């Protein structure tokens, strides 16, 4: 390139870097006048076009450039970014492979080609390229790239089981062929051990590990040490591992619990049966550790407890008083630390006298909370006592007494933290959480929402004192959702400041079944936008994680590559991602006008996710659980509708409902979709269940999936299926043939962008331009009972729930009725066109829509009116007074300001009023939007 040209191109790069795509395009066009054949300028223009969403124009340019099979590095780089932006990894692979073929001596091209395959997870091709590169450039690292690609191929779910061993053997051969020893680089060593372990060549692995350098690596590299531990175990070296652990504990004061477990396993699970002596030996070791460490480190003390627990399990415990005495000892030393309860949980399963003695010991500690340390002890004692309760001990009376105790202790201990800065957590917080747990338990025992309201008051109070207590916040979110006060749940969720990957693990707190609370129909997009915001992270994953996988290859961090790939996969195929997707769609349809564009777009997106193998990354453990050991956890107790959280089954059923409805409403069949698609298709799932024809699989609603739904949701699903079954033949008959659809799409694209659709040749049509098929229209069937009766049924449901205390049931019935109507709109959109009806003689069919629609509209209006009445009631002084009275009944003499209580009562009832009102208004809006046929 001439220097002059170089100088002229630089500003284009600058524009691209700063996101000024428009000026980049202008600059490119200007330069292209002078250099009309220049590939680099063209490729930069293509990139700027991709980034400004001018896809059609960009595609034309990309195709032209790709056809010329470029080899120039800057051109390839620009095109690589283009193709990534378009989601066309396959084209990218081809582009680099073509370039590399032309210049086999160009190492950088080889590397790029390898990486293109890595990004597309083409492990087999990656191996071939690595082999070629090693031959050509004689660099050891290409052997390792080759070997890890074989490993990754073996781990790919699409690889048949028989192939795996062959691939690991291949990786093994490659590693053995390497001239430099693998131990020179820790991560090469790791890969070597990994492969040997897969092939069960434990002796070979041991030989490597047993060398001096092997030992050094394992001492300084936790990943290698992890795999070493595993190999020793598999090789039956439990005793050696125990001896190693013991040495490290004594000589290096290593306090990693894994070393203590090694000693414990050697004592109890080694080749020799445990004996009094061997147990004594372990006790001796741990006792001396405990003595040396004092209260600085609790590992020795806990190891003593673990010895006793295991000794009891193998009937070798000699002293029945030992466990209680160890527990008392532990509590005495560590009771002042927050972790004590969690530490002791595994050792609390004991009965009879021992139990009552231990309980009375704890009772003695529990009452004093005069210093921070005693407060922590008291908290621990109460947590343990509560955990150990038996079913007979959990009654309304006993829980009420406990509640009172916790609240008293909480309030009396608050002054201990009065001087802490507001950024610190209050030491008494856990008593508020214990009270919160108890109030939820009381609600479960009595079904009286008063207890939830009281939980809201108490936790609000606690949060006021301890502004950053995320535990109080999380529980409040749950409580407000149960109370039907979603706007407050939103406020507290936002206060958590959930960021980045946390959206995936935590958004369920807000967005689980969120369409229940959505006011999108009335124009309030709060929940829709939360859905979109929480989904950003998946885009980041798509855009960024691949770069780091490539980076891990460059830096030869073989231990990380499989982990990154797993991470990418778990996020890409996250269950929560697609649950949110469905919730968002349920909201979107109520807010936006249903058009064929919306139907087509949503259809393609949903079809792509239907066959994903989903991973559940949701964090449910985050909610601190202080319920008795036999009880359901706080998490389970505070989910909506007394059901487990929506899982794979729920998602599957709702995807079926929507894909079916959208597919019927859409003109895109598979051939059309294939042509119009820009990016790559998702890889086909190896799961045989996901192989059959989609249309058939959409119809098979599995019983076991339905158990994840509420009865009202099942009602909706049954209706949706009946509706789709009924209308399917007419849709199939009326849907224009692919050629017509494509011709129309081409026309539209050309009108919009000025560019023809690429790669589409429109076959001449057989005479009639409207695509009428030759066969007769299917006979018109009467609408099925499930469809005809649905709206009456849901109305009856509404009449049952409208006066019940739980708002969630009311909201659910109302929003499901609305959803049913929206599905009806989607399913019947095609038949709105009078010409379609006329040509295909479907007058009888559309006539049968009329009464259904009329009933639906009437029922929606009825529900809307009911919601309005109920919302007025929620806003009344009686309800608010009852809220306040509910608090004074249960927690009368507690020192919580009356005004504060009133404030919470006000905002909760207002939030409840608002959601009822809003859903009611939304229903009316939907009615008026779709009131004409």
């Amino acid at each position, binding site marked *: 390139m001439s220097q002059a040209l170089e100088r002229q191109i630089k500003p284009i790069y600058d524009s691209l870097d700063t996101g000024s795509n428009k000026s980049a395009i202008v600059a490119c066009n200007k330069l292209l006048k002078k250099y009309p054949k220049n590939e680099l300028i063209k490729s930069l223009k293509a990139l700027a076009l991709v980034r400004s969403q001018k896809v059609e124009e960009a595609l034309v340019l990309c195709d032209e450039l790709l056809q010329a099979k470029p080899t120039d590095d800057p051109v390839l780089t620009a095109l690589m970014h283009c193709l990534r932006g378009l989601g066309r990894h396959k084209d990218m692979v081809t582009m680099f492979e073509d370039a590399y073929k032309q210049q086999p001596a160009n190492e950088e091209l080889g590397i790029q080609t390898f990486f293109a395959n890595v990004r597309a997870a083409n492990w087999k091709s990656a191996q071939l390229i690595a082999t070629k590169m090693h031959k050509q450039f004689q660099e050891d690292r290409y052997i390792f790239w080759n070997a890890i690609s074989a490993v990754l191929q073996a781990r790919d779910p699409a690889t048949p089981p028989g192939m795996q061993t062959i691939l690991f053997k291949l990786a093994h051969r490659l590693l053995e062929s390497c001239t430099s020893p693998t131990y020179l680089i820790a991560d090469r060593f790791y890969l070597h051990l990994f492969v040997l372990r897969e092939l069960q060549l434990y002796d070979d692995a041991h030989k490597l590990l047993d060398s001096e350098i092997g030992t050094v690596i394992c001492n300084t590299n936790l990943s290698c040490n992890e795999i070493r531990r595993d190999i020793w175990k598999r090789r039956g070296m439990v005793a050696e591992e125990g001896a190693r652990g013991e040495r490290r504990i004594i000589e290096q004061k290593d306090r990693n619990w894994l070393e203590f477990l090694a000693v414990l396993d050697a004592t109890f699970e080694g080749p020799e049966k445990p004996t009094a002596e061997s147990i004594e030996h372990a006790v001796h070791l741990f006792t001396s550790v405990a003595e040396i460490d004092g209260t600085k480190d609790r590992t020795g003390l806990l190891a003593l407890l673990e010895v006793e627990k295991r000794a009891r399990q193998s009937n070798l415990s000699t002293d029945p008083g030992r466990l209680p005495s160890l527990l008392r000892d532990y509590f005495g030393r560590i009771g002042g630390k927050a972790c004590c309860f969690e530490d002791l949980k595994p050792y609390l399963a004991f009965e009879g006298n021992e139990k009552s003695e231990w309980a009375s010991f704890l009772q003695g500690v529990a009452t004093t909370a005069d210093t921070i340390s005693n407060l922590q002890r008291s908290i621990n004692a109460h947590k343990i006592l509560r955990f150990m309760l038996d079913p007979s001990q959990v009654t309304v009376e006993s829980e009420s007494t406990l509640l009172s105790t916790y609240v008293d202790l909480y309030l009396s201990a608050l002054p201990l933290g009065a001087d802490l800065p507001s950024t610190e957590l209050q030491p008494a917080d856990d008593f508020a959480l214990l009270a919160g747990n108890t109030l939820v338990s009381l609600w479960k025992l009595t079904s009286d929402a008063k207890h939830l309201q009281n939980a809201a008051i108490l936790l609000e109070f606690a949060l006021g004192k301890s502004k*950053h207590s995320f535990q109080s916040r999380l529980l409040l979110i749950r409580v407000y959702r149960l109370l039907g006060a979603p706007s407050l749940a939103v406020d507290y969720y936002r206060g958590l400041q959930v960021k980045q990957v946390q959206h995936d693990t935590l958004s369920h707190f807000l967005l689980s079944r969120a369409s229940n609370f959505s006011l999108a129909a009335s124009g309030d997009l709060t929940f829709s936008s939360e859905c979109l915001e929480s989904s950003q992270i998946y885009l980041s994953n798509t855009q960024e994680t691949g770069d780091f996988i490539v980076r891990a290859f460059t830096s030869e961090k073989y231990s990380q590559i499989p982990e990154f790939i797993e991470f990418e996969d778990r996020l890409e195929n996250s269950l929560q991602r697609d649950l949110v997707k469905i919730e968002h769609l349920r909201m979107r349809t109520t807010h936006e006008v249903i058009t064929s564009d919306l139907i087509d777009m949503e259809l393609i997106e949903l079809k792509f996710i239907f066959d994903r193998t989903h991973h559940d990354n949701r964090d449910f453990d985050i909610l601190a659980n202080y319920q008795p050991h036999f009880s359901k956890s706080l998490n389970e107790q505070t989910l909506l509708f007394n059901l487990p959280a929506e899982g794979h089954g729920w998602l599957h059923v709702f995807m079926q409902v929507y894909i079916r409805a959208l597919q019927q409403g859409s003109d895109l069949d598979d051939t059309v979709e294939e042509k119009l698609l820009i990016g790559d298709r998702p890889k086909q799932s190896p799961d045989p269940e996901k192989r059959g024809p989609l249309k058939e699989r959409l119809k098979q609603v599995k019983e076991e999936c339905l158990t994840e739904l509420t009865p009202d949701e099942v009602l909706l699903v049954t209706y949706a299926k009946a509706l789709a079954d009924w209308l399917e033949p007419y849709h199939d008959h009326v849907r224009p043939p692919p050629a017509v659809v494509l011709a129309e799409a081409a026309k539209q694209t050309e009108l919009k962008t000025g560019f023809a659709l690429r790669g589409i040749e429109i076959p001449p049509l057989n005479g009639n331009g409207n695509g009428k098929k030759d066969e007769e229209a299917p006979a018109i069937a009467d609408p099925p009972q499930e469809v005809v009766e649905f709206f009456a049924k849901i109305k009856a449901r509404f009449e049952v729930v409208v006066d019940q205390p739980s708002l969630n049931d009311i909201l659910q019935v109302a929003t499901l009725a609305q959803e049913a109507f929206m599905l009806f709109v989607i399913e019947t959109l095609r038949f709105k066109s009078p010409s379609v009806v006329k040509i295909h003689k479907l007058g009888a069919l559309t006539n049968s829509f009329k009464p259904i629609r009329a009933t639906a509209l009437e029922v929606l209006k009825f529900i809307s009116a009911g919601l309005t009445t109920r919302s007025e009631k929620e806003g009344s002084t009686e309800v608010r007074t009852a809220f306040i009275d509910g608090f004074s009944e249960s927690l009368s003499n507690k020192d919580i300001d009356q005004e504060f209580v009133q404030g919470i009562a006000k905002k909760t009832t207002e939030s409840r009023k608002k959601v009822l009102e809003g859903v009611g208004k939304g229903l009316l809006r939907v009615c008026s939007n779709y009131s004409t046929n």
Partner: protein
Amino acid sequence: MSVLRPFKAADMFKFNNVNLDIWTETYGIGFYLSYLARWPDLCCVQEAPSGRMMGYVLGKAEGTSHEWHGHVTALTVAPEYRRLGLARKMMNLLEMVSDESYKGFFVDLYVRCTNSLAISMYESFGYSVYRRVREYYGSLGIGKGGRDEEDAFDMRKPLSRDPNRRSVRLNGREMIVSAHDVP
């Protein structure tokens, strides 16, 4: 009692109980991956036997010639597991690896000048202030915490390759540099 093990990419799904604390920032996934892609042995997790995460450290190795050193980028322990010696254990590991695997001359870290708790903790681990970096945490305007809120101390601890303690100095608190002058 805690398990010391490598930080893995999938730990991002598990670190909520640590990261929901206000003192701990949650960065984009690229941040964690960029550390793991280069210095996985300087990133580790402390985990309770129940599998709950207790804390983690992320570090890197950087610098040239005599400035080659280990750096602590993030050290954090969940509130319920503080004062159990976990920070100390993770720092020990990071120092050991910086010393034995990377052969660094020292380990360093940045800490807000107002975070006196952390400063005295690092001092008890053998670190000392090497210099004060102006507006390391951005310019906040002189607010409640004043300069201390926006400035950082660069603290260092020499490793075995620096037996003469050339990488530290006594009057570090008075040595003031601007944020542009540090990596």
